[in-house]
């Protein structure tokens, strides 16, 4: 347990208004692990991932990420937590006022990474998701699958320790979905801890990962 990179102990999340998204959830993830979180929509998958990135705060319990207590973290420390996380969320939040390349550059730009090296890394990330030849394109001209891959490139460009994805294959054709699942597996194979929330059974059958199942906010 001491080596866990992510650990939840008796974590609950109650939203204002009384809706309880997570109830007394405990689990831990070892470094380099590939973990899928499944459950019906509304089961609390997204909330669980948001607690790790401090987008939401737990109302009870302790969330530890790389030894840091995220549930009690100061606001000023959050950016530095997120720099070690790669986040791929459902609403992709790409910026349509700049090229695909500049979108991928963003995580490196905000940390003041030397430009030359940042550009090299951004191209490498774009290459990894197969979008290198589209680097000049505006993301709005990319297909849904391509936009999802662009998000993945942006998430991995700063070489995070933990990659977190919320329904990365939702609304994609099976073929695209397989490619993306394969991408996550390859990141995991080079040592990145990967947490994916999904109800894509194909992916689970294919990768045979460890699976946590949420049911109405509790681990089943």
């Amino acid at each position: 347990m001491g080596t866990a990179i992510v650990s939840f102990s008796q974590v609950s999340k109650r939203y204002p208004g009384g809706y309880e998204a997570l109830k007394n959830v405990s689990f831990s993830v070892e470094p380099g692990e590939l973990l899928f979180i499944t459950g019906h929509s509304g089961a609390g998958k997204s909330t669980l991932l948001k607690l790790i990135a401090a987008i939401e705060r737990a109302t009870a319990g302790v969330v530890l990420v790389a030894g840091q207590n995220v549930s009690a973290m100061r606001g000023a420390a959050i950016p530095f937590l997120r720099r070690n996380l790669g986040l791929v969320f459902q609403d992709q939040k790409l910026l349509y006022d700049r090229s695909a390349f500049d979108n991928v550059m963003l995580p490196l730009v905000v940390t003041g990474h030397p430009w030359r090296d940042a550009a090299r890394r951004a191209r490498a990330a774009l290459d990894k998701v197969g979008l290198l030849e589209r680097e000049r394109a505006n993301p709005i001209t990319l297909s849904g699958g391509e936009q999802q891959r662009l998000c993945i490139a942006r998430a991995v460009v700063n070489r995070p320790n933990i990659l977190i994805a919320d329904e990365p294959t939702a609304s994609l054709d099976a073929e695209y979905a397989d490619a993306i699942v394969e991408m996550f597996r390859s990141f995991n194979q080079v040592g990145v801890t990967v947490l994916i929330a999904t109800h894509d059974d194909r992916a689970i059958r294919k990768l045979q990962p460890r699976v946590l199942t949420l049911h109405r906010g509790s681990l089943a």
Partner: protein
Amino acid sequence: MIGWLRHHWLSFAQTARRLAANPLASLLNALAIGVALTLPLGGYVLLVNLQHFAGSAATEARISVFLVQEATRAEAAEIQARLRATPGVRSVEFVGRDAALAGLKRTPGVAEVVATLRENPLPDAFVVTLTARDAELAQRLEQQFGKLQKVAHVQADSAWVQRINSLIGFGRTAVLLTAALLAFALVTVTFNTIRLQILTQRTEIEVGKLVGATNSYIRRPFFYLGALQGALGGLAAWAIVEIGIALLNRDLAVLSGLYAVDMRLQPLDSTDGLAVLAFAAVLGWLGAYVSVSKHLYKIEPS
């Protein structure tokens, strides 16, 4: 250090690009701020000119020293010697009481009044010409001469300068008041522009926060935007005032010809102009600061 500078340069460049991307909106904003600033700035320029005019034309380098009626010739001579020996005095002219009365008798309108007088009410007097046109010197000597024995009254011809100066003091207060009010207006305008800009860049701010941007990184471009917009407004005000002066000078040139006096208005000097730019930039920054503190923290990724 270099990374930090580059960081700042990048956000500044980004801000400039953003302004350039909406040229019309940026121009109108700058003009709105500029017009607001023109009022106090124009008032200031007029004051400076008035002061300049009062300073050059008004400081008559002469002081009249009137003796008491019973002063004797010998006492007058002694005073004359003393006046002459005072540093800052170029020449001393004696105006005897008889000569003064004769002078009055030659003045049309006054002559009849003077004729009814039984005896000469005028004292002996000296007209002291100073070495320099210096209001301070005139004032000092005026006081000094007033303390001399047998001197009844000292009149510096610059008395009306003081009146103008007090008028200028009043004008300065008025300018300061308008400046304070319109500075507040500038802060408000910037506050609103920045609020709108924050709303337009909502997604960008959210994404920035998601990928680990610190608050100061996110705030920085907005500060630059406020300061830059303020400075552009200051520049617009400067331009408006210069144009105004040029137009006024065209009319004044006609007057100058008629009265044979040089009455051209001096433009704002570059130190003052740059001070206005800096002042406006600081106010813009302030507006941005208030706006950012109020609005930016509400935007969090969800």
